[in-house]
Each structure stands twice: as structure tokens, then as C-alpha cells.
């Protein structure tokens, strides 16, 4: 699995990937989707809605259970991944590429991302 360079991960297994112009991509880590098992339902927020860091912004359901997904940093939703709503299994297959959840805009994300871990440190913490 290709892990994008520079991603930051939260203790609740969301990742944050910085793009250009204060736009960030949020998704679930490979560990998270592996633990959830077959994902069969995704509920995403509306474009334009705003959430603060730690707030629930989406729900992902596996065959077994529903899981709430938290904002790793706050921000305004600028794009949602409609493809995973139609085909939730993409989350299992490609969590870092095709299976992203939302894109947000936040000019001050750096100020809120201090508690997030680099991927290697995140993986170490899991062991």
C-alpha cells in the first residue's frame, strides 16, 4: 500500500494530508479500515458545513458496527468523495488514494495539528 508522504494521523485513526492553498484531505488510515472490516455504508457531511477539531463529521459502517469519524483539525468542507458513498468498499481497497473522505479548508490547520503523529510514529504507537 502506498502511504502518501507527509500524512499526519490522529489517535482515532483519521489521517490529514496537506494540499495546496490551505486545502487538506481527510481519510481513514489503513489500520482503521483493516480493523473495521468490510465497509458497507458511508455518510458524509454537506459541502460548506463547518466542523471544529474533534467533532464528528461522518459515519462509516462495517458489516459489524457503525463508527463515528472525527475531525483531526477543524475546517470547512469543500469537497466530499461521492464515489465512496456509492461504493463503500473503495475505503477498504484504497484508504489513502481513492478512498479519501472529505477535503477541508483551514488556513490555521498547523496550529491544530500538534497532537497528530507522522505515519511511522503512528504505526509504532499501534504496536
Amino acid at each position, binding site marked *: 500500500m502506498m502511504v502518501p508522504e507527509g500524512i499526519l494521523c490522529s489517535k482515532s485513526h483519521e489521517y490529514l494530508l496537506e494540499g495546496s492553498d490551505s486545502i487538506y484531505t481527510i481519510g481513514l488510515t489503513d489500520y482503521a479500515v483493516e480493523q473495521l*472490516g*468490510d465497509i*458497507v*455504508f458511508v*455518510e458524509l457531511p454537506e459541502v460548506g458545513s463547518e466542523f471544529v477539531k474533534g467533532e464528528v463529521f461522518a*459515519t462509516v*459502517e*462495517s*458489516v*459489524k*458496527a*457503525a463508527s463515528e469519524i472525527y475531525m483531526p483539525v477543524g475546517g470547512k468542507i469543500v469537497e466530499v468523495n461521492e464515489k465512496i458513498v456509492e461504493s463503500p468498499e473503495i475505503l477498504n481497497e484504497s484508504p489513502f488514494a481513492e478512498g479519501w473522505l472529505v477535503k477541508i479548508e483551514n488556513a490555521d490547520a498547523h496550529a491544530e495539528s500538534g497532537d497528530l503523529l507522522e505515519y511511522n510514529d503512528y504505526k509504532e504507537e499501534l504496536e
Partner: protein
Amino acid sequence: MGKKTTFYNKHLEIGAKIVEFGGWDMPVQYSGIIDEHRAVRSSVGLFDVSHMGQIFVKGDQALEFLQSVVPQDLSKLPLNKAIYCQLPKQDGCLIDDLIIYKLADVEYLVIANAANIEKDYDWLLTNKKDYRVDVINKSDKYAMLALQGPNAYKIVEKLGLLQDTQPEFFTIKTCSLDGVDVFISRTGYTGEDGFEIIVDNTDALKIWDKLFEIGKEYNLKPIGLGARDTLRLEAALMLYGNDLNETTTPVEAGLKWSIPKDKVEDYNGKRVILDQIANGISKKLIGFEMVDRAIPRHEYEIYFDGHKTGIVSSGGYSPTLDKNIGMGYVDTKDNIALDSTIQIMVRNKLYNAKVIKRPFVQKRYKIS
């Protein structure tokens, strides 16, 4: 940490994810719930169900004793035949649901749900009174495997039990499989044809290995509790703890078909159960499929015509139908019938569902 079955290390070896269930550390999935589910529907899968209990009831009054604790009429049960039973309290609500096998005129085998083994055993001992029977809990002695799916019988055949000597639907036999003495029955919890094998723990690993060796040809897969739940839900089979508990009667649970109205002997809860059959019930079990996009789950609320009418007992994604389905209890006063529209409350929002017939997926038992 829960109890471990004889196969625990096998599960770890082949990559199972383990969860606690009914006091046991059990595999919830191996390759993935949907993949395992499909394997059972299309070919064959093997489940470790050693957490289930085996309680033997033996003695010249075994029949009289069992007649006093279940609503079913065991007096008509032929030798080696199985019957689906319940264990009601005096108020008609259920201690457990069971499969009972008649092993001999004076000996029956009771299969209890994992979380209820001690409760059932205590209940049977309490009700034993002066009946000349021994109630013996041998759950720790035996392992139990379920081989389920349309190709299950072919594997059993290659184990040495030719088709015409295999137990028929809902019967049991004792035999030697590859040199190991077992009980083998034509039963299961998936809606497919299949077998359950009860084997002494000391011989259990040998049977496991042999089944996978022979099963390779049919792509036999190990199946965890996750797919066990999705398979039984599609077949609308009851799960004690979800669909049945100590506040539901078998009549409310839609199990009236299993209860004879003309059984002579008295049994725990008889007055309540017969009264409910004759005069009706205040809540009943229904099946439904979601119309809107949402997954119904255990304990979500059910609404009808703007008010709360009940609660989901089991629900989830059906891999066979690629739909979200569920069962639940609703208030009979609302006259909810087939094709009625109901709503399920999911994360504080109501989503439409339609009442449909159970089972959701047709059973494919081999009934000769």
C-alpha cells in the same frame, strides 16, 4: 480474556480476528465477513461452534422431565430426530432457545447457546425435582463444528459417510469419521444444507485438519461469527440475546409454528403461551428491508405513523440481497402488516423501511 475452544490456536494461525462472545474468545472473521458469507452460500464453510453447550438428559423419566420444561411435544419425536425448542419461565418468557435430539428412548441431547449454558443447566437442575433423570453438562468435553453450504455433503461423503448414509434433515447419528467417533447431525444456522459435528475435544483437531484437507477441492473456508450472524439474519433465524430474551415469549417472537396447542402435559409458561395463542399478543416480531439508505441495528427504535412502535432486535447488511434488512418488535395495536411503511431511527433521523416476509433469503435445506 474469555474461554478458548480447542481450535483457538488454529484460528490465530490462519489469521482470525478474535472477539469476546458469550464469555468466549471466538473468531469474528478470517478473510472478511462478506467473502465468508458468500463462500457458505455458494460452496461451503466451516464454523467453530464449540462455545455451544451440550447437556445430556438421561434416565427412565427423561421424556416426562423434558415435557415439563419445553412447550414442544417430545412424545412424538422419533429416535435420532431433532426438534427446535424453547425454555420458558412461568411467565412464558424465554431462558433460552434450544435444539433437542432424541438419542435413545431414555436419553436426549440438549444444545444450549454459549452465553446460557450455566443458566440452562441450573434451570434444568432446579426443574428436575423428583424426576428420575440425570442432567449432565458435558459442554467442556466436546468441541463442535458446523460445516455449511451446498457442497457440505460432498466433503462429508469424502470423509467416509456416503450420501445415503448421511443423516437426513434435522436428524443425528453417531458414527466414525476417519477413525474418530462423532455425533453428526443435518442441522445448522445459515439456511443452507449442512452438518454439525460434535466431537470429543481430544480428537477435534484431527477432524478440523481432515476437513480442510478434503475441503480444498471445494475451496472450504473458515467462517467467523460475523458471517454466522449475517447468514442467520438472512434466514431470519433467532439469535438469543437479540431477538429472544427473558422478556419475550415464543408467541411474540413468531415461533407459534413450533408450539402444539394440543400438548397434554403441563410445562413452564403453558398458561401464558396458550393464552397468547388464543387471545393475541401486545407486541410481535416483524421483518423489514430499508427503503432509504441506512443500516438498522439492534436496539434502534421503530416508528409508525409518527410515533414510536417498537425496537429493532437484529439488523444489518445482507450480502446476498445487497440490501439492509432487519427484524424487530412492534406494537400490535398499530396493525403493522406486510408492505406497511415503518421508520427506523438512525442517529436521530428517521429512515423509511418496508415490512416484508421472513426469511429474507430462501432456505435451501435438503429435505427428503
